[in-house]
Each structure stands twice: as C-alpha cells, then as structure tokens.
C-alpha cells in the first residue's frame, strides 16, 4: 500500500540532468547607512558557481561565517541575491516575483540544525506535519495518507503512537527524524540540510545520516548538506565543496578531498581534525595562524593568502585566483596550480 502512493520525485522530462545551476551568485547585505554615507556591504556570498545534478548529494564544508548558511538560505528562497542567477529545474528564478519564490520554496525541503528549536513546542506531530500541507493548499483528503507516509519513511512507527505527541516528548534523534519528515512531506526535488546532526549525540548521528542517505537514494532526491565536520562527509555525499570567506575554494569528489586535498585551506582543515587515538595527546597540530577575514573588507587577491603557508607574494595578494583543474573533476581556486598540473612540492 505504502509503495503505491510513494513515488520517486517527478523531475521534468528533459535530457538535462542538472537540477540546480548557480551562476556567479552574490548575496551582499548592506550595513547600516549613516545619513547619506554608505558604510559598505557584508559580502556573505561572493561569486559562487556550481551545478547540482538530479539525484546527487553534495556537501558544503566551511567555518561559521564563511557564508554557507546564506548560500543555503538563498537556494531556499529566504534571502534575495544581489547578483548572479539561480536556475532551478530549467527555470531561471526571478526573486522579485512572488510566484517564483513560492514555487521554489515548494520544491526545496529544509532540515534545520537544531531540531528542538525548529519544531513548534505547542504543536503535536500531526499538526507540525499538516502545516506545510495547509499552507501549500494540498487537498484535505490527502493529508493523512501523506503524513503517514512521511512518518513511516523516517521510521517513526507505529505512526499512531507519535501523531499526538509533542516535540518535547521525543528524543533528540526522533525530533530530527520528524524534521526530516516535515522536509519530505511536500515531496520536494531538493533537500537542503544545515548541519542536521551537529546537535545530536555521536551514537545517533550516524543513524540520521544513514536515514537521509537511504531516503536520498530511494527517492532519487538531490541533497545539499552543510557541515563543518569533514569526518562525517564521506558517509554521506558524492561531492564536496569547500567554502572559505564567501567563495568556493575547492570542489571535488569525497575520496579525493580526503586523500588528495589541493587547496592549502582544505589541507589545514583536514589536518586539524583528530581521529580518536591516544597518540593525539602528545601531538601539536599545525594550525594556520589568524582568523577568517572580514567579509566587509575581504583581502585583495586570494582570501586565504594572509594565513597561507605557501603564499607567493606579488601574485596571491593581488590577483584573485580563478578555478584551475589540475586533476579531472577536481577544481581548486589557488595560484599554486596555475600551470595546470600539480606543483612538485606541496
């Protein structure tokens, strides 16, 4: 019965495999004006381009303040881009048109970071899941079957036991599964998840990640997953994008990023993640000094150059590096790879 109502996402019938295409996206927030004096902009997302294929899961890794949440909010239709364009399922979005934004929000499901904060405490599970159906004018008769289907999909079963519970009666893992169910209920084409497991215990994290992976494969969904925890990435997605100071500095396959990181920032990031081993006690990690730059006045040239151990004065601090492709399918914005191949010593 379940299998009959449940169907993979209905993508538009085209040859085009690309679901989401982001071109030179800029999202700037204006600082408070003082009279007619213009104080400047916070460049939260500054010239980002990427493509997301149908049925593909990608991860965006970056520190807080690197603009990854703003990027996500723009894809969700919650922030308005300053420049560039977003093409979703072949439709170029015009953010000034309400119909486009509403349509986009229908197509994209959102899994928030803090499950308890994302669920209204005064609503039962049934009401939480019904809310998006009411807002998006789904026929009344369809409500219950859809709610049941979503809850079964995230394994909150038996469904009857959960329908009348309030969020505080659920454990952290169950709350997060409810959030996933809510994101699925409108049958979106794309799910975006903002650090979906960072608030959960280690023992539950894997369960949620596996669940999301299974749903993604079963429904042939596209997923954008945001995290700062590189160690969980390899269990989740196919491609990884590394974000630093409002730019994507490296885009590659998961195994490639772990075995062959090219950008000095990615290398530093990987180097600073401990594995649980007693030897860590005596090991001092090599961490680049300093902090991510201000996004109001980003440094000229490569944004990582003030912290970079491989800085080439005269090049890195004056000109912004374009994306190079030293290995097939591995894009990196770093002048070290300007000759196309790998430099001799890294």
């Amino acid at each position, binding site marked *: 019965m379940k299998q009959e109502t449940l169907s993979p996402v209905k993508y538009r019938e085209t040859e085009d495999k690309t679901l989401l295409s982001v071109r030179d996206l800029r999202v700037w927030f204006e600082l408070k004006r003082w009279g007619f004096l213009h104080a400047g902009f916070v460049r939260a997302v500054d010239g980002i381009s990427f493509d997301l294929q149908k049925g593909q899961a990608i991860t965006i890794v970056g520190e807080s303040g690197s603009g990854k949440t703003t990027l996500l909010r723009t894809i969700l239709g919650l922030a308005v881009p300053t420049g560039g364009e977003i093409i979703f399922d072949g439709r170029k979005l015009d953010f000034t048109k309400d119909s486009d934004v509403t349509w986009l929000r229908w197509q994209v499901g959102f899994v928030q970071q803090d499950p308890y904060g994302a669920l209204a405490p005064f609503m039962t599970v049934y009401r939480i899941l019904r809310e998006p159906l009411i807002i998006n004018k789904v026929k009344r008769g369809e409500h219950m079957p859809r709610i049941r289907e979503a809850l079964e999909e995230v394994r909150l079963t038996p469904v009857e036991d959960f329908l009348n519970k309030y969020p505080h009666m659920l454990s952290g893992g169950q709350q997060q599964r409810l959030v996933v169910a809510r994101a699925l209920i409108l049958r979106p084409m794309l799910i975006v998840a903002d650090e979906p497991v960072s608030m959960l*215990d280690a023992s539950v994290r*894997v369960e949620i990640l596996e669940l999301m992976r299974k749903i993604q494969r079963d429904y042939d969904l596209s997923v954008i997953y945001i995290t700062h925890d590189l160690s969980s990435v390899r269990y989740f997605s196919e491609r990884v994008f590394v974000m630093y100071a409002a730019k994507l500095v490296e885009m590659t396959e998961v195994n490639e990023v772990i075995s062959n990181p090219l950008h000095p920032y990615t290398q530093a*990031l990987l180097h600073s993640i401990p594995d649980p081993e007693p030897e860590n*006690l005596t090991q001092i990690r090599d961490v680049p000094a300093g902090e991510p730059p201000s996004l109001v006045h980003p440094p000229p040239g490569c944004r990582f150059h003030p912290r970079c151990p491989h800085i080439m004065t005269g090049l890195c601090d004056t000109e912004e590096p374009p994306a190079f492709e030293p290995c097939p399918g591995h894009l990196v914005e770093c002048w070290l790879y300007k000759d196309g191949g790998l430099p001799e010593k890294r």
Partner: protein
Amino acid sequence: MRRTPPATDGPLLRVEDLFLYFHATAGIVRAVEDVTFELQRGRSMAIVGESGCGKTSLARAILRLLPRNVHTYKGRVLLNGLDLMKLSEERFRRQIRWREISMVAQAAMNSLNPVVRVGHQVAEPLLLDHNMTKRQAFDRAAEVFRIVGIASDFLQRYPFELSGGMRQRAIIAMALITNPSLIILDEPTSALDVLTQASIMNTLKGLKKDLSLNFMLITHDIATSSELADEVLCMYAGQVVEHSKAQRFYPSPLHPYAQKLMASVPTLRVEKKPEFITGQPPSLLNPPTGCRFAARCEKRFERCEEEPPLFRVGEESVKCWLYEKG
C-alpha cells in the same frame, strides 16, 4: 604565583560514592549515582558519554555549583586529601572554588558581560581576593592572557571586539588566573570551528605540559577528547561504566557501551563504517534495576539483571558482568 604542591603523595582528586539526585515534577532524577574514581597528580581525564548521562552534573557536584532542587547530595570528594564535603559553604567558597578548582563552563564564551572590559572580568577572581591590589591583579591578568595566546592589549577591549576563539581563550585565562590545582573544562571547544578548536587544543596541551596542570575534560566529542586525555571515564545513565587509560580506551574499550560508542565515531583517515546504538538511554527518573545498558546490549546474559559492581581488569575498572573473572 606558582603554588608549591602539598607534600602529600596521594591522588589529587578522589571521589567516593558520590550521589546527586534532583527533584523534578515527575519524580527524582538520579543524575549522578555511586561515582567513585581517582585522578592522580599531573594527569588529565576526559569524561565522555551521551548527553544527559550526568557528565555536567558530576562536574557541578565536584565544584558544588548546585541548583536549588537538589534531593540528595552525598559521598566524599577529597582534594589533596582534604574532604571537601565537610567544609562549610563559606569556607568552600573562600578556599576551594576557583582557588583550587576552577571551571570553563559550557558556552561560557557567550556569557561574558558585554559592558565590562574583558581584562576586568578576567581579573575579577583576584580583585575579590583582598590580598591583591588592582595593579597586581591586572599584571597577573596580562600574564595569563599571554599564556593562553592573546596580546595583553586585549585586556582593555569589550567582549564584542573579540572573536569567538579569543573569547574562549579569555574564559580559559579566567580559569587559570588563580593557579588552581584542577581545571574542569565542560565542552570547551564544541561551539568553535575546526581550526579554532585545533588551535585551542594546542594551547591546552601546551599548558598541560609547561604548567603541569590537571584537566578534567567533559565532552561528547570523543575524537576531541583524545587530544587531552591521559585517562577516560565513560559514563552511562548517571553511572561510571568504564575508567581506563587512554592507550586502552581509544583502541579497544572494555565495556560493551564504550565499544559501541567508539564504533559510532566517524573517522577521517581510517576506513570503517560507523555504527549506531539502537534504542535510547534509560530515563533517570526510574532507571532499570540491574545493568542500565542491558536493554541495548548485544552481549547481555542472565547475570545482567543484577547490577554489576566495578570490576578491576588490570589497571582498568569496568562495570560489566563479562569481566567478573578479571
């Protein structure tokens, strides 16, 4: 300001049969139950476990920072051989809290007073101490700032002028300023970015080595805990289930829960598939009799209906019937 360690050879901290229960509307919450352990001088301990297993309650019980709804608070806490539970509240406040044991509380970097200069907040424990002039206190504050890696002109700044990592360093400076014998770190890096976290862990390792400080690190992030731990205390549902040396715990823990917990940690460099633990930890309102992990344990047998004591296995102790014969 270096304190000469007391002449006693005994352990730095000894906790015996510590209980901490809270009143709640639904009944009594058994947050810490029958906790016994020893921490030797010059060693650091990590307390790991899932959220709600009583890690923070244990720290608060040691520092006697208790809320009003305490139901039972009993046991013995010996610091350098002195029984802290026998001290009056006033004596504990004057002699122990922040003098001998200080704490970096969870998310403390966000609880700095926004309208007071950072230097003043860091020097405050010394300013309250009547033996110190303002000048001396600020000199010492500048010294600890240097130790944790912040330039001393930041003493004059307000918290909003500091980045998250710097605020966390200031909080660590605050815990260091009175030169205590034990510092409790409650999730000191969990709100920070990976690079900042690694850099703060480097600082803490340096402090441990250079000033031979004793840390008690409370965290649910097992990979990070390995950065600072000489030994590991693993808690489950209010009880200590395993107390092992780090060399033992991270590669091959003894207790089935600790084994499951280690298996759930994703690793970056080693190829393995992380597992999750089915089921949920028991409610601390009316925990099951017998072993508390039995319901989720794959290795349970008849004996598990009785509560196991802590068995000694070599230098380790483990609360599991599987190790009855050592």
